[in-house]
């Protein structure tokens, strides 16, 4: 069971993540979009979306710090565990709170605004459920575990982090994870499930973050001959020629 949960599942999910993205990019460039719903509603979006996304950027940075940088490295530069802990909480709690608040606003908006709700697919709903649970568990782990020490103190930098790195060293150490508290276990396993879902949901838009915009010339010229792939036509032409339909409610 330990091997299944903490070795097999992560590797399968990561494989699906990588192969899935390559496949989706090749097969479905047209579907690779944020699927923005700003046209329908923008009062709530204007608050919720930046809160969620900027919060999420903070959360991702925090995970990079906590999971990828070994404790030995922070010790080496003279950062004491308690100082590290303070930094993690001071940065992590506002980021987590912003993410959660943003997500709450966005989910409420999605349900309460008619047009936004009808543009929500089953795929979206499943993704939001998993994403929301992962975020909630993560915040629970931080607040309950690290701040108030519910159920004893747990140093994830001795358990979760080395296990996570061990996956990428290709020498997985599942026992580290088997001993972790239930909250961390659930957070980790659901996060991997989310990775597996990633390429098949709208989350793919994360990988089109337009950083190239900063260095690119403003006006793009392109020749008629230059075609992104081998379809017949000047460019790979568009889908989306469905007729408008009325779904009365």
């Amino acid at each position: 069971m330990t091997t299944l949960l903490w070795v097999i599942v992560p590797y399968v999910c990561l494989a699906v993540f990588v192969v899935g993205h390559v496949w989706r990019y090749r097969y479905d460039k047209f579907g690779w979009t944020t699927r923005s719903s700003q046209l329908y509603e923008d009062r709530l979006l204007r608050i919720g979306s930046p809160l969620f996304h900027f919060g999420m950027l903070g959360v991702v940075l925090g995970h990079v710090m906590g999971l990828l940088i070994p404790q030995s490295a922070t010790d080496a530069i003279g950062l004491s565990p308690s100082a590290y802990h303070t930094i993690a909480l001071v940065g992590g709690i506002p980021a987590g709170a912003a993410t959660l608040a943003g997500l709450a606003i966005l989910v409420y908006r999605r349900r309460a605004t008619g047009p936004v709700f009808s543009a929500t697919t089953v795929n979206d709903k499943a993704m939001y459920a998993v994403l929301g649970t992962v975020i909630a568990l993560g915040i629970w782990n931080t607040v309950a575990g690290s701040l108030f020490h519910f159920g004893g103190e747990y140093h994830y930098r001795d358990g979760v982090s080395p296990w996570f790195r061990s996956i990428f060293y290709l020498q997985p150490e599942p026992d580290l994870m088997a001993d972790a508290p239930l909250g961390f276990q659930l957070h980790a396993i659901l996060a991997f499930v989310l990775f597996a879902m990633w390429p098949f949901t709208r989350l793919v838009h994360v990988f089109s973050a337009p950083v190239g915009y900063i260095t690119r010339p403003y006006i793009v010229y392109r020749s008629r001959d230059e075609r992104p792939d081998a379809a017949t036509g000047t460019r790979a032409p568009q889908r989306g020629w469905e007729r408008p339909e009325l779904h009365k409610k």
Partner: protein
Amino acid sequence: MRVMAQMAMVMNLDKCIGCHTCSVTCKQAWTNRAGTEYVWFNNVETRPGLGYPRGYEDQDEWQGGWVLKKGRLRLRAGGRFTKLLQIFSNPKMPSIRDYYEPWTYDYDTLLNAPAQKSFPVARAYSLISGKPLNVSWSANWDDDLGGSREHAVKDPMLKGIEDKIRLEFEQTFMFYLPRICEHCLNPSCAASCPSGAIYKRSEDGIVLVDQDRCRGWRMCISGCPYKKVYFNHKTGKAEKCTFCYPRVEVGIPTVCAETCVGRLRYIGLVLYDADKVLEAASAAADTDLYEAQLGVLLDPDDPAVQREAERAGIPGDWMEAARRSPVKRLIMDYKVALPLHPEYRTMPMVWYIPPLSPVVDAIRDTGYDAEDRDNLFGAIDALRIPVEYLANLFTAGDVAPVERVLRTLAAMRSYMRDVNLGRDRREEIPAAVGMSGAEMEEMFRLLALAKYDDRYVIPTAHAEQAHALEELATDCPVGSFDAQLPAVFGEGSGRPVPVAVENFEMLRRRQEADSLENQLIGGQRKQGRVNLLNWDGVGLPEGLFPGPDASTHDTSKDGSR
């Protein structure tokens, strides 16, 4: 000098009767799809009026286009870093209410209503929410100055002259302004696109959105000051006027021009110096921009330009088309066409001949001779309001060029009357506006008589490029395009299909199928859906008019009546 060719359009506003045929045929060809119900690549506005989307010209609010800040050209809504910081929620994007909420009618109620005392009514339903809708705005709600006391007074172009203007119905002036994408030389939509999906085609300057690269960040929609990039809310991608590139590539004009009842549109090439665009767009004063824009254009008869064009790889027949271009003659030779809102600094390439008709109408209404040169010249000077209004639209408020154009048109009107009536030609009339009689007659021919081939001088794309064209697929695909993989990720996913093939298949399916998918809401069949994209203007488009059997009604259902 870096010579580039640009496909440009001129519209002669005096001839526009506001029939909206261009809008309807464009919609039929390009935007009668789910997600684009509210989108009009071509729309016709009544001026003074708010336009579509409502009040789009108020750049203090919408922040579209470019501005000059400390001598440098910048995007008004902010540069690259500002854009990236605002990427999670575009603060300047118009909402669906600024366009209008698209609707359809509940025809089912009409068709299936039982015999009853009160007449059944087809209610309007929103195509966005699916709920009943009280229709209160549309793409041309203030058509023909409808509700102008409420709407036209808010026209952003009346700023500065609002105290002089009278919008009382009997006293106001009015004209129509058809608008498509400007296919600018310095497009701010392309500059605003974080993904680099909007590009300017180097062969003909048409500005297109690469649907495979667009990621739906929506910055182009707020970046375009003309609000001519739209968001397809079903596919989550930006869409815009394509200058009907599949048609233009094979030498036929755009659908809007082809179907224009007043024959007011001219299409042709202009040559321009791409190296000078930035400098021209950075002209110090807004009122310098019209001249600066003219300065970027190159004379195809100039041997130096011809040499450079050859070096730039512009084919010989394209040079020939540039020399014969009606657009070039109206813009550069007669200088009667003006750009729409040069102050946005995007170097728009759809030009307009301002309407003389408000002036002519005013004279005629007072009982004087509206063809007389002196009356017309006097009226142009006296009627400040139309002239100032037109200047706000076409020359950033500088009345001098507008006056010059109106005087030229007035002179032509007066001079040609003498010619048509067989009187002696009065050569002092063209001389008063700096033209010769022969030149004036040529201009008259182009504006009033020009035939199809004179109005549209469109060089075809080259045979050696044929493989790359949309309409002339030269390869022989193995298997049918029908056998597509299902769109597993919902709306719009899956492998791309060439536009032409897609249309053809879609059309065939719709016309042949007899399934539920082919039914309108009222249970009526979808027969008679017409595709104008492939229509070359000869004969009737297939399916435009119902056949003799289409009207036979199935009376068995309501046979009791």
